[in-house]
């Protein structure tokens, strides 16, 4: 186990280098006209001023030197200043992060509440009306783009019924309701299917038939054995979907004006604020990698087969 943890941490290093390098290279390719962004049209400023500014920003140095300087700055929490607001990029990003994390956590919570009971129900009522009914809804949910769901919910709850505000005003329960629901609907639709498949697979195993043959009541089998052994897979699947959620929040945040990093990124993209986009990509990727690693390690720590070295992989 210790060896495995060490191995995974070592594997993290090339991935992190890859993430930072890719983000940096991409922004440099796109943002090579940073000076033009700063001064407007190129012809409007003297060559000397441009050269001086380039030297000041370090743009005259070789690519790799620039990259290393940038990574060094990133580790100290210095990611440059925004082209648009002139504020510290890293500070702005960190100040908006809690809102996004809150939204993510709320959506995951709601997904768990919706999809696990429904998924288990669909598996237990396999191939009966309830199962078809739930699968139909999961299918519809899977085919709806989340921005469409967002607009539909907005139309119904904010405009027609006037229960909730159209755009969020700060972090309040009312304004968190619709974005959370939107994200949870899409995620539950996908996740419910996975829960159903996992539980169904477990229900089809021989020990379930054995237990039933011995006269153990079905609900006891379900709660004591089936759910216990399928929970691990279910939790892992949920953890793996966090990444999609982190990316998906961007569009929902900008629809509901939720003041998180997703909206920050979309605004930055519209304004071509490259340092801000860079910070968003790099940090989201790092968060994602860390979340995945944690889940993987937890999975290994929790599964007795792997923990006790009965079988590898």
């Amino acid at each position, binding site marked *: 186990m210790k060896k495995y943890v060490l191995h995974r941490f070592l594997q993290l290093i090339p991935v992190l280098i890859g993430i930072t390098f890719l983000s940096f290279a*991409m922004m440099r390719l796109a943002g090579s006209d940073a000076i033009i962004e700063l001064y407007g049209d190129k012809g409007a400023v003297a060559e000397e001023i441009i050269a001086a500014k380039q030297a000041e920003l370090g743009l005259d140095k070789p690519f790799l030197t620039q990259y290393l300087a940038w990574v060094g700055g990133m580790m100290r929490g210095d990611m440059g200043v925004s082209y648009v607001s002139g504020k510290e990029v890293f500070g702005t990003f960190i100040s908006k992060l809690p809102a996004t994390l809150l939204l993510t956590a709320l959506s995951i919570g709601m997904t768990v509440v919706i999809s696990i009971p429904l998924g288990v129900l669909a598996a237990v009522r396999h191939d009966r009306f309830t199962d078809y009914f739930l699968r139909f809804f999961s299918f519809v949910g899977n085919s709806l783009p989340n921005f469409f769901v967002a607009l539909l919910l907005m139309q119904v709850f904010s405009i027609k019924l006037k229960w909730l505000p159209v755009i969020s005003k700060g972090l309040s329960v009312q304004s968190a309701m619709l974005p959370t629901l939107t994200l949870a609907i899409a995620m539950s639709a996908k996740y419910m299917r996975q829960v159903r498949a996992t539980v169904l697979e477990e229900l089809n195993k021989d020990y379930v038939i054995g237990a039933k043959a011995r006269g153990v009541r079905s609900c006891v089998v379900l709660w004591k054995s089936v759910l216990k052994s399928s929970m691990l897979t279910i939790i892992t699947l949920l953890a793996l979907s966090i990444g999609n959620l982190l990316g998906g929040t961007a569009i929902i945040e900008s629809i509901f004006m939720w003041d998180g990093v997703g909206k920050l990124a979309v605004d930055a993209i519209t304004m071509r604020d490259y340092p801000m986009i860079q910070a968003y990509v790099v940090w989201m990727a790092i968060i994602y990698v860390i979340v995945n690693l944690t889940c993987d390690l937890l999975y290994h720590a929790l599964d007795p087969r792997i923990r006790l070295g009965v079988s590898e992989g």
Partner: protein
Amino acid sequence: MSEVTIRKQRIKRDSVKVRLIVFGVLAVMLILCSIFSEYLTPYDPYLQDLSIAKQGPSSEHLLGTDRYGRDMLSRVIVGSRASIFSTLLLVAIITVLGTAIGVICGWNGKVLDTVLMRISDMFLAFPGLVFALAVAGCLGGGLQNAIIALAAISWPKYARIARSQTLAQKETAWMKAAKLSGSSTVKIIFVHILPNIIGPILVTSMLDIGTMMMELAALSFLGLGAKPPIAEWGSMMSDTRSLMTTSPWITFSPGIAIFISVMIFNLLGDTIRDYADPKSRGR
């Protein structure tokens, strides 16, 4: 196996066939509609007539008109070209690119394999749309750039499937026979490997069409895909969001169009998967 089981299985297989035909026909109809969209519109989708602006659905304009008095039904039909066509193009690109890289990796092994697989790891390290957003942001808007952005994050999945399948094929007896009989690498790859590995890859790409369509529409919705006045469902929706309170049909008709198309392609994808792999049926 009892006779009853065999008959049950046969009935199930037949029902999958029926589904395959029904959804296949629907999907082909959608694609045909996107190809011949110009000839199917009842009105000119770009013709403005302010005297009939923002009219609700009526017998004359089935889906109403938008703020410039353009017929919504015509715009939705024309929008199918940008939405459906670019999605199919995107899926074709990632399938071919991913498969090519995967086969090369699996066949060559060694350094090239390691390097390409590490690169694909790098792309997989970015969460979902985050990287696509950044790529689209860097390249600027436009449908073409949105396709590039989504292709950049989607090919590694295909490369992995193709690679593992190629590795499995390499160990088979007929591969050794082909090598012994002196077939060239190109012939082995195209005649022996590709036909044997293409099944699971095509199933994956069929299942991906719906997702890709939604993601492309999402990028357009954010203003990173097709730009107005080109009719594209995602951008049409974001374009008309301000009118949602007074004339919701303008915003929702393209949304429903996306929903229906995604659903048809998802149903087709599921059916093809069931057909190809009976084990996954009913999952």
